[in-house]
């Protein structure tokens, strides 16, 4: 390591720092942008809950709705947990 390299190494390469910070923030903001198009999810969850309640008595927290990214496509995942007593009503 030459005499000059020493001075350069002690002064941190700020361009590299800038690039790393940008990669993180840009990835984060792109992620949020992607989810903005799913801002209908809470409403969808509420309406589904109302439909299911016509047939089964369930609590608000028994329905879970989620979007999963799987490679190039997205999966809308809907999970309704029925308790033992609810199942009996269904029969």
């Amino acid at each position, binding site marked *: 390591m*030459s005499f000059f390299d020493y001075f350069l190494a002690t002064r941190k390469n700020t*361009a590299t720092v*800038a690039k790393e*910070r*940008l*990669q993180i923030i*840009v990835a984060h903001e*792109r992620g949020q942008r992607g989810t903005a198009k799913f801002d209908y999810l809470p409403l969808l969850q509420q309406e589904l809950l109302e439909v299911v309640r016509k047939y089964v008595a369930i609590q608000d927290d028994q329905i879970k709705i989620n979007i999963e990214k799987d490679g190039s496509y997205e999966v809308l995942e809907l999970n309704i947990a029925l308790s033992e007593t609810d199942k009996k009503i269904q029969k």
Partner: protein
Amino acid sequence: MANVIVVTSGKGGVGKTTTSAAFATGLALRGFKTVVIDFDVGLRNLDLVMGCERRVVYDFVNVINGEGNLNQALIRDKRVDDLFILPASQTRDKDALTLEGVERVIQELKQRFDFVICDSPAGIEQGAIMAMYFADEAVVVTNPEVSSVRDSDRIIGILSSKTYRAVHNLEPIKEHLLITRYAAKRVNQGEMMSAEDVQEILAVPLLGVIPESPSVLQASNAGIPVTLDTHSDAGQAYLDVVARFLGEERPQRFIHSKRSFFSRLFGT
């Protein structure tokens, strides 16, 4: 049919107006009938940079409101054939533009010109969206600096979601990255992100870099698009950019500085 190109950035003061003037002039120098529109309503500057501020009679908003027609508002450049300017209004605000009005004017210009260049105002709001809405291609102007790159990323997101092409599910706007105010020497010293760094983050094809150059201020002082200054490195860089835009191959001669004997000697 004409090509509509928006020059946009998100962040202010990065070189959109300089680029719009230089790029439009470069296209006209190559024989294409070109018009450049100032979308910065209320803060018009393109007329000054192009040196035609004293010839403005009717403006973009007048044409939209039917207070004057395009022939009255278009200013023919005195130096370059086939180059026209449509100035912005100085007295109205950005709400004076309507999508229907802008569409009507752009449609009419497309009949008469090969290229319609739209100089966008800064920001990500209505004014910037108006300027990009009917674009076929976009030149995203970025400085190699954190806030400018981040804002450019947001503008790229808006180009692909809020424009006519996006809303109507047409082929997306073709994007080009232009990095301006680039100091290759500082890049070498690790003080500034390189063109490759910025390109990698934004993932848009690189059209070119424009060096930080004192000739840009001198050109705007005199009201001469920098592409007309044959001694200017920035002017040369813009001419390269125009050539690449037209599909020609040009080496990227402004990305790397020639390393000095001193720096080679000490391996920095």
